[in-house]
């Protein structure tokens, strides 16, 4: 029941914030913050007891009938992984709404923002496949509204549409996969249900399982995004000041979907898909890294560095071992914080210098030292400096991948070099050198200092002390791995590259 309260608090906050903004704009901001804090507190409380819970059988479940005619249930559930991501989403959400305190039409903003958070949290909790799809699609609408309303007016009008088009079409293709799975399971067992724990037991012929898995993975890869599907992401980043926080939260749902649905539901097909996925991952890391290096728009750099990070996530996911999966979860968090920090810096820079072009800046250190200090810190985090969270993430992923495929690990490590290049280029162009900006430039305000300070502290703490995160997710990840490695119902060809991936004994 407590899980449903998290979503209900957010929705109630959304409605209240929309209604109160008629009288008092400030009030809707405080209501929004309060409801997020409430949900955050609840989720944090659950997180401490979460490491022993298994998904879809936890004690906090809510399971009622939703659309009884087709056997869809409103089943919310959570384990360590989902609670960790929920807590983290709400944390980023709080920062996002704090940043957007002075936006016009706060009632509209907070309504959509809280609905968006509710949808994302719903994704992490859904234990029913149709419910998952419902939440998955539900978050598009507020996201689209926010992007349409708070669009950067200098950008083309098509930006929000691009986002909607990519995600909606891939979502509908996933729906076809879900329905096929539903009917196959129904015909086998004559129980027509969307319940995840039931559908996992469906026996599928390999070609069909591969097709359904691809329909799922396509939706997740678009959301992540991985290279051929990245078109919406840079557009979204330059769309509005908070798009970055939003996308930072959104992209994690893609990785979560692969980990929670695509791999457990279709283990053999996932193994077959792994070499392709790894290739996509490597291409993503390097290609996005090079684009980030060659861009001058700082928001574009942020977008492509985020895409480059998702390449690591893909590689880690399809390396199928505990170490790389831990790294993936780390990367989801670390990437969102560090890229988010960069985008916040970009906005702060823009309000001071009226430009996003890094070639127009320089020597900021002499004028605004606190600003530049945080800027350097974020750049170092992006390039994966040891003792910061990104380092742990990339190290875990690369070490895990190394056991599977040395080539992939070596190629992916090149990505770190590229990351160093583009993040140091920011430092070189913006903070050092000859000062080019306007005469008067103010340093960070107290709010900016606090926000960046919090982000920096989180990055350092996660970089030094990783035990809590690895511990809460360990059980869930091990379960999925065992599921994956103990059910080889299909004989794979001996010479396939995937066999090597499959027979990985390294669980701990």
């Amino acid at each position, binding site marked *: 029941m407590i899980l449903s309260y998290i979503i209900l608090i957010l929705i109630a906050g959304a409605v209240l914030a929309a209604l109160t903004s008629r009288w008092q704009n400030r009030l809707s901001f405080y209501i929004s913050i309060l409801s997020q804090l409430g949900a955050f507190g609840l989720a944090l409380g659950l997180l401490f007891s979460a490491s022993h819970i298994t998904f879809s059988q936890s004690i906090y479940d809510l399971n009622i009938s939703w659309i*009884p*005619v087709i056997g869809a249930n409103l089943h919310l559930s959570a384990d360590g992984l989902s609670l960790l991501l929920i807590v983290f989403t709400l944390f980023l959400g709080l920062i996002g709404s704090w940043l957007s305190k002075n936006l*016009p039409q706060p009632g509209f903003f907070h309504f959509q923002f809280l609905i968006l958070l509710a949808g994302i949290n719903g994704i992490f909790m859904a234990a029913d496949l149709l419910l998952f799809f419902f939440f998955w699609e*539900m978050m598009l609408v507020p996201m689209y509204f926010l992007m349409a309303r708070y669009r950067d007016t200098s950008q083309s009008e098509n930006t929000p549409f691009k986002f909607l088009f990519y995600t909606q079409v891939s979502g509908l293709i996933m729906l076809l996969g879900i329905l*096929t799975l539903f*009917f196959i399971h129904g015909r086998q067992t004559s129980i027509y249900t969307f319940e995840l724990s039931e559908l996992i037991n469906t026996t599928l012929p390999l070609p069909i399982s591969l097709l359904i898995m691809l329909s799922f993975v396509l939706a997740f890869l678009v959301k992540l995004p991985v290279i051929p599907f990245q078109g919406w992401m840079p557009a979204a980043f330059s769309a509005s000041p908070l798009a970055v926080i939003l996308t930072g939260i959104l992209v994690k749902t893609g990785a979560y979907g692969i980990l929670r649905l695509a791999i457990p539901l279709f283990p053999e097909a996932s193994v077959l898909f792994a070499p392709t996925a790894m290739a996509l991952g490597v291409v993503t890391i390097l290609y996005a890294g090079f684009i980030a290096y060659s861009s001058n728009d700082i928001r574009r750099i942020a977008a492509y560095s985020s895409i480059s990070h998702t390449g690591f996530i893909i590689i880690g996911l399809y390396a199928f071992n505990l170490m790389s999966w831990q790294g993936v979860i780390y990367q989801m968090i670390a990437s969102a914080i560090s890229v988010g920090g960069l985008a916040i810096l970009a906005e702060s820079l823009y309000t001071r210098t009226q430009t996003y072009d890094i070639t127009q800046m320089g020597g900021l250190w002499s004028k605004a030292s606190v600003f530049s200090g945080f800027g350097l810190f974020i750049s170092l985090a992006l390039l994966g400096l040891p003792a910061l969270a990104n380092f742990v993430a990339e190290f875990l992923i690369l070490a895990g991948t190394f056991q599977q495929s040395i080539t992939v690990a070596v190629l992916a490590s090149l990505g770190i070099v590229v990351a160093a290049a583009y993040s140091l280029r920011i430092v070189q162009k913006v903070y050092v050198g000859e000062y080019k900006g306007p005469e008067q430039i103010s340093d960070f305000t107290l709010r900016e200092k606090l926000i960046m300070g919090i982000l920096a502290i989180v990055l350092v703490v996660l970089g030094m002390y990783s035990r809590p995160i690895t511990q809460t997710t360990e059980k869930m990840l091990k379960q999925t791995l065992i599921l994956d490695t103990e059910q080889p119902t299909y004989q794979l060809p001996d010479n396939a590259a995937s066999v090597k991936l499959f027979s990985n004994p390294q669980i701990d």
Partner: protein
Amino acid sequence: MFVALAPFYVILVTLLVVMLVVSFYRNHFLTALLTFAGTALAFTTLLSHCNCLPWWAQDMLITDSTTNIMLGISLLITLVIIITGYNYFQQIADKKEEYYLLLLSSLLGAMVMIAARNFVTFFLGLELLSIPLYAMVAYHRTKRESVEAGIKYLLLAGASTAALVFGLAIMYGASGTMDLYTFAIYLSQLHQMPSFVLVGIGLFLGSIAFKLALAPFHVWTPDVYQGAPAPVTAYLASIGKAGAFVFLLRLVQESNISSHTPIFYILVLLSIASMLVGNLLALGQTQVKRILAFSSIAHMGYLLIALLAGGNNGYQAGMFYLVVYMISSVGAFSSIALLSQNQREPAGVSEYSYLLQRSPLLGSVFVASVFSLAGMPLTAGFISKIYLALAGAGAALWTLVILLVINSGIGLYYYTRMVAVVFKTQETTEKVRVPILSGIAMAIVLLIIVWLGIAPGGFLYWLVP
């Protein structure tokens, strides 16, 4: 014994009362009030439903739960159209009252079509629905495009009626019956369909396709939708299609008509053509009413998937999709009606700019309706599209389901183009004044769209046969 026919009687009596009142005392408000009261009363008689037709009506009408649900939805939608159209027709200089007469008689026709179990009843209902519509479409007597739309509709509908009568004659000649169920039994006993029966059914399907605006029988739709007054378009797009579809659904459910290969392919081709024509032609349009007209063509194409899927899933998906489509269309067209000022409807997409700022309520209803038509989540259209895909996938109609997905993607482009301008803001805008009753009606439409999009379980439960 008359309880089952009560809605029909109430509408008929209201029609006569309004006719008498108008001929003695012309008053727009009084006429609208009487029409509203009569329609509301007809709706309340539905609540005490019983399946107890008198013997002389049993061969002509059927009052099962399908009839009841569709009658209820149609009457509720008419109520919304009356309320939101009141201010619209207030702006017309003279002769406002006849509109309500035409509306009521057309509604009676639609109700008869929904309840028809005989091809003759169906034909009578169709004519009673169509003939007032010619006048309603051309209600702006002084506007060229409205009159043009009326004449176009009259000529083409006349031709389609002729085809219908000819088709029915052939079907009667072959089967010796005009009863829906007897005809269905006749069809299911046929192993191979004789070609003249095929011609008859083809003509019948063609004229129904005309009513539903399925491609290639769609050419009248954009002009008529655009030329007609917005409340009439709302009526035409929603209730004008309900009767024909429900009758076709009954025929397909009762017989194995779609298992005959030629009929199956006719329906599949109609569906594919409508989806593609509707969506592709909508892409280039700049006028909101024309975009919605093409989108309605596409929606009818989607609906045929439910028809072809058959079985319980097909029946529920078809009914649910139709209801959701009707409600969403009414939401969109009624918003247009409420936005009209001095007999001028906002036409181009750009005239809907700043709508959310000008009137948060109308903006929300317009966005919700358009998104519901687009099948976006949190609106009813999302669930109904899932259900449709479910029915199609269950019947293994993969080509159609994949086309449904592709077309939904294409559709997003023109739907979001309409929605995107609504979010624009500027410093000062003139507010739109929404009359309080219209505001309440629109808020209810909005709530229904969102409610069916989040918790459709209860409504779908009603549709279980």
